[in-house]
């Protein structure tokens, strides 16, 4: 049976792992390669690396970092942040990334999703969607949550699926960093609406939160950062807990 995935996420800024709350107040939390090795050994099912560096210096640190991670881990990993052209995708895959994720570039240039899917296959094309509930609507935000777009979550997700995305990484900006649980409502609606895998992100604080998102929604992966980075929940402990709840877990 296909197992539910536990996915630690490492936000990378200038070569270091950082973590914020509600997308703000960034703190450095460690070396991404060392953290990747640790999580891989602990049984993480995948890793996600999001480069949130604001400067053009980012490419200089990102590619060698991707290569170093690929050298050292034997589980799949996804890389995102600042990807806006087919060449960026090719370079990342060539250096060891297994999948790439785009967010703002998908919003400004939706046909990039199709181009990547056609060239490298849907399976490596993850579209990340950051969403916040504003004025009674689930709106999609770009540029690391800074800019509100015209798009509404569910219609955008459907469009992304039709354009050839292989997976959606759904982050609720309302719950991100709050440790109050995943946004079950939108994750449930979205995972029932589309027929590609959904990874839930934002808000994990307890092991129960993972159980809830896997039992109440059709999400096949759950992503979290701070609880793993700050050793609040260990991955082996979490996986044992979910197994004890009869969830399919590797």
């Amino acid at each position, binding site marked *: 049976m*296909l197992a539910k995935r536990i996915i630690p996420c490492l936000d990378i800024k200038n070569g270091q792992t950082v973590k914020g709350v509600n997308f703000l107040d960034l703190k450095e939390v460690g070396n991404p390669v060392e953290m990747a090795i640790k999580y891989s050994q602990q049984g993480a099912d995948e890793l996600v690396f999001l480069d949130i560096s604001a400067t053009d210096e980012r490419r200089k640190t990102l590619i060698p970092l991707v290569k170093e991670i690929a050298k050292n881990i034997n589980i*799949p990993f996804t890389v995102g942040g600042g990807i806006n052209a087919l060449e960026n995708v090719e370079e990342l895959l*060539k250096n060891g990334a*297994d999948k790439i994720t785009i967010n703002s570039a998908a919003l400004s240039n939706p046909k990039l999703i199709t181009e990547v899917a056609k060239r490298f296959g849907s399976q490596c094309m993850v579209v990340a969607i950051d969403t916040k509930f504003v004025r009674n609507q689930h709106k999609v935000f770009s540029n690391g949550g800074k800019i509100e777009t015209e798009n509404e979550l569910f219609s955008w997700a459907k469009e992304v699926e039709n354009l050839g995305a292989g997976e959606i990484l759904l982050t609720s900006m309302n719950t991100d960093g709050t440790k109050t649980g995943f946004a079950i409502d939108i994750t449930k609606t979205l995972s029932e609406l589309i*027929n590609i*895998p959904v990874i839930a992100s934002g808000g994990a604080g307890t092991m129960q939160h993972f159980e809830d998102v896997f039992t109440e929604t059709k999400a*096949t992966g759950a992503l979290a950062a701070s609880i793993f980075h700050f050793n609040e929940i260990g991955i082996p402990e979490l996986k044992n807990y979910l197994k004890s709840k009869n969830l399919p877990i590797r």
Partner: protein
Amino acid sequence: MNTVIIDYKAGNVQSLLFAIERLGFSAKITSNPDEISNADKVIFPGVGEASFAMNSLRETQLDLLIPVLKQPLLGICLGMQLLCKDSEEGDTKALGIFDVSVRKFPDSVLVPQIGWNQIYDLKSDLFKNIPEQTYTYLVHSYYVAKNESTIATTDYSEAYSTALQKENFFGVQFHPEKSGILGSKILENFLKL
């Protein structure tokens, strides 16, 4: 021992190379027909789209070379699918070593299948010391039905082939280089055949 990884611009050859190196072996990434012909082991990787990949193979005439190779060859993911007769993906005629068509998963399941799933009914030296129901990492929208060459089975919409073998040709739908310690062991088993 001389191992080559076929480079045809479709796939994540780098992570495969790293996985081989972690096992203490080396490999050369190449599209040179002589180097491929003279290798002891050939790995035929693939992450990508079938018709694009077949076009790349045709441009370099590797589509003619691969089927006549005599040494052990391991197709991975799309590499395994391209060893089959044809694929629904891009309505592609493939290499025809395995006489079976590659089909798309039905809408009754999430497509692509992404994640860790179990392999069972393991039948080849490729799976020496690999327990039944081992989890492997899979990422794919198209699949190969069970057939006489099936050496590993996985359940997703139906019981389908996650590995194939016919003579010197092996194929795995999962990514051994991304399937943790046991995945590495499967890769090592191939390199030691």
